[in-house]
Structure formats: C-alpha cells, structure tokens
C-alpha cells in the first residue's frame, strides 16, 4: 500500500488540527494558569526591552544600531523565540522523556516520532510571548519609518520561519544527547540565556572570534542579527540585501536536517524504561 505525499500531508494536518483543539481544551481546563502566563510572560519581555531603551537613551546607540532598529531586532528575536516555544519547547525536556520511556507511545503510532513528540505537546501558552514580540517589532518599524511592502513582508515571514527552525533544531540537537548520555539535563535555562544575549542585541558588539562562532559554527547570528540588518540595510560585514532572510531559512532547514538525523540515530539507541 503506497501512500502518496498529499494524503500523508493531509493526514498530518488533520492530526495537527485535533492536537491544537486538545491543547486549547487543556488551557481551559486550568483557567487560573492563563492569567499567570498572560501577565508574567509579556512582562518579562517588556522589562527586557525597557532596559534596552534605557541603555540606548544613555549612550545614543549600540554599535551603530539606533533605538528603532534595536526594537526591530528585539522584536524579531522575541517573536522567533515565541514561535519556537509553541512548537519546539519540548526539546528542552527531551532527556526526561528518554529516561521515563515516554517515546514508547510515539514509536507504536503510525506517525513520525519527532512530529508526535513536538505536536502532541504543543505549547499554546507560547502565544503569550508572541504578543510583546509583535508589539515591540511594530513599534520599531514605526520608529524607523519603514515602508510595508510585499518585499518586506516576505523577508519577515521567511526569516521568522528560518529563525524558528534554527532555534528548534538547536533544542533537538541538545535534547538528543540524552539518548547517548542516558541522563536528563534541562537545557532550557542555558539555551534561553545564550539565545537571549545573542539574538536580542547586535552580535557585532561581541569580539570577532565570538562573531565567527555565532556565524559559522552555531548559526545563532542568522536568527535575528543578519536577516534584520539585511532588512534594515545596516552593513554587517558578512552579507547584506534581500536574500539574507533566505540564508536564514536555508540555515534553519540545514540545522533541522542535522538535528533530525542526530535524533534518529539517537532513537536507535533508545532503551525505553523498565516497568
């Protein structure tokens, strides 16, 4: 029985719709959580941005980036963070799933394991991070007096998809180490810290060696710094122009493919857990 690609895709979309429906139902099951997330998550990022505002107002600009441009950068960083939180946050906790044998269930169902791992645990609350991200982004665009053209919209969408894939891929790569080490480490805190510090500010302010690492080894520079500088026409010394966002997308796909392969290799070593 050969199943064609379109049927397969429709099947996955159908399951995704059901999974999202269940996630929304779960949110309503615990209404008191909603209020907490709605307040604390946006506040965290609004406060973060307030600090940038303070710094810029004191020093004029950061490494050639003015206030409005920094807001755009910050916005893209937070939006891609929020998207990765919605779809890929489980990667942070993959080690616990490995140790507890929770992959058993995914392996006995006729869908991709990685798909099930992320989508059956889809994190609707991530939306609460999306709101401050979009607010700061729109605010930055207005400050810079940007013209909203099709070019602009395409670049933003493409870079967000790429950035989310880069983040997600990194979570998967880190999480998949658990298959080999057979221990559960919560990478969330570290990744969040590093990602925040390298995507919310221009990486041109770091030493050159670090810039090199963030550009070519761990492609975090492509999450926000390069595509946003391309979007705003700020010289970054590596690459500029309309196509930077597409490089971000390509980097995202590359990291994801790598992560997928590493995960699949890990899954072969999966040992489940005793009863």
């Amino acid at each position: 029985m050969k199943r064609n690609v379109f049927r397969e895709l429709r099947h996955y979309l159908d399951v995704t719709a059901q999974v999202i429906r269940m996630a929304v139902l779960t949110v309503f099951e615990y209404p008191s959580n909603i209020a907490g997330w709605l307040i604390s998550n946006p506040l965290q990022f609004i406060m973060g941005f307030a600090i940038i505002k303070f710094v810029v107002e004191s020093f004029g600009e950061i490494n050639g980036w003015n206030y409005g441009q920094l807001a755009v950068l910050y916005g893209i960083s937070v939006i891609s963070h929020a998207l990765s939180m919605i779809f890929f946050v489980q990667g942070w906790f993959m080690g616990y799933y490995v140790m507890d044998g929770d992959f058993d269930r995914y392996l006995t169902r006729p869908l991709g394991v990685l798909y099930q791992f992320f989508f059956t645990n889809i994190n609707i609350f991530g939306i609460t991070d999306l709101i401050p991200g979009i607010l700061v982004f729109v605010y930055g665009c207005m400050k810079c007096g940007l013209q909203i053209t099709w070019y602009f919209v395409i670049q933003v969408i493409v870079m967000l998809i790429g950035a989310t894939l880069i983040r997600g891929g990194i979570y998967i790569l880190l999480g998949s180490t658990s298959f080999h080490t057979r221990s559960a480490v919560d990478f969330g805190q570290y990744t969040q810290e590093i990602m925040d510090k390298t995507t919310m500010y221009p990486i041109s302010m770091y030493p050159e060696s670090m810039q090199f690492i963030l550009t070519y080894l761990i492609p975090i520079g492509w999450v926000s710094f390069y595509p946003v500088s391309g979007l705003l026409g700020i010289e970054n010394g590596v690459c500029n122009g309309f196509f930077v966002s597409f490089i971000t997308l390509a980097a995202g796909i590359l990291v994801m493919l790598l992560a997928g392969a590493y995960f699949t290799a890990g899954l072969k070593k999966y040992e489940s857990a005793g009863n």
Partner: protein
Amino acid sequence: MIDVNHLSKDYLLKKKEPGLKGALKGLIRPQYEVIHAVRDLSFHIDEGEIVGFIGPNGAGKSTTIKMMSGILTPTEGSVLINGENITEHRKTVVRNIGVVFGQRSQLNWDLRLGETFELLKHIYEIDPVDYENTLEVMDGILGIKELIDKPVRQMSLGQRVKGDLTASMLHSPRVLFLDEPTIGLDVSSKFALRRFIREINEIRKTTVILTTHDLGDIKELCERLIIINHGVMMEDGKLNQIVDRIAPYKTLVVEYYDEQAPEHEKCEMTSHEGNIAKYRFMKKDITAAELIADLSKQKEIKDVSIEEAGIDDIIKIAYGS
C-alpha cells in the same frame, strides 16, 4: 502472523567502581560491560493465538515485547509482522498492532477520556462507522461508554486500564501486546481485563501477546507459554504439555478416620500429618481412580481431593533451572 528470527538485544552498561577514585576513573576512561538482555530468540506465532510470556524480573520479557512492538531496535535478528519487518517499516506495521504497557497510560491526563479516543481516531484514520462499532463492542465488554466523559485524572487505576484497553483496540489491530496488564488491579478489574482478552480474541480474532507474573492470567488465558530466563528461551509450548513434561505428577490428598495411613508402591507419600496423607503419583504409572481404589481396600477413606501440579510449580522449576 508474527515471525521472530534470531532476535538479540545487547545493552552497554557502564561499569561502576566504588568510591571517589572509582567514580573519577569511570569519568575519564569509562569501562563498558555488554549485557545480553535477549539472546537469539526465534519463534512463530499464528493468527488468533494467545501467548503468555513469563519469566522472572529482568529475564528479558519486556525487552522482547518492546522489540516486537517496534519500540526497541534489535541488536541482531528481526521481527516480522504479517511478513513486514517492524524495524524497517515501523509506520506501516504499527497500524496492525495495539499496545498496552502496564501502568504507563497513553490517555491524556487533563482531558475527558473521549478526547484521547478522538485523537486516536485521527492518528489511525479510523472510519467513523468502524469507530462506532468498536466503541459499541468495547462498551459491551468493558462498559466504556459511562467513562467516556470523565476526565482521566479523576479515574481509578481500574478505569484507566479500561480506557487504555479501549484506546489500544480502536484501530482494530490484528495483534495486541500487553506488558503486565493486571499489575496493581483489584480482583474485579482483573476479571474484566481477562474477559476483555478472551472476547477480543474470540470476536475479532485478535492475536494477543502478554507478559505477566499473575498465575491466574496464565491459567485462564494462555494456551501457549513462552518461558524466558536470562534472555534465553527456556520453554515454548502448550501450557498443559509443559506441565506434563516439567511436572508429570499429581498429588492425591486422602483423609482417613485415624492417623494410620497406608503406603502404595506406585506413588510416594510426600506428607502425613494427623489424619491427612498426601500421595504424589506419576500420571503414566497409575490413575487417581486406581490409587483411590487400592488405598480404600487397605483402609477406610473419609475424603479425597486431587492437586494438579500447578503453574506455580512449573514456574518455580523453570525459573530455578
């Protein structure tokens, strides 16, 4: 239906040495030890069989069943279900299997039971008519419909197991794997579970493979037993044949009117306390009726009963060897 060919699974276990020095040594130059959890298992299971896997803890039962259901990748050998290799074609082969693993539930903890069923309906692309039919059958066996609107977190263990059993049957699998399904269940839930296994086997011709430590499960369900110990197959065959071979004897318990008990040359008196004597005899040497007749000629008998060599004896003998 199911072919298991030379199946083996090795684990690498890091050797731990005692003390701080040992811990440091393990950190710098880890030494690994190969554990052979399952060694060269081969067997065939036909459609519609109920097969019990038994063996002591750590014998390799769960490892075997997890390789058979596609969860673990075998180190060597293969598992074919309906002629297809489960390791290579996981996504297609698992459409034909259902899995219930002990106390690990696949139900969504936060929502009503029906939501998990709904999700599975989409995952397995179940036809709505088939779905309703299966639910009807499951309602008949387990009374699942009264639970369908109950949030899973509010359910008792017995109710959750019923939910899990139904969930595993929604896509009408040809094979059902159960890993210690009766663990922790009370008597009536156990009874319901056994009835469930018997009925799906009868009504739907579902092949059932289960591991258990419960002698009742084995006695009531399994026609065929596979006994595993230290990852190696010890016995594979019909329950009564294994019993006949490992323990080909019965015990006759005789109560007399006084403490004098006669002996008999074709059997062995295994105990004699008060008015009660126990005779162990080989089935091939003498029948129970003959033995009773012979004994009653020598002495008046008040009461008799016959003890079959139990499965517990079999397990004790098989595990011990």
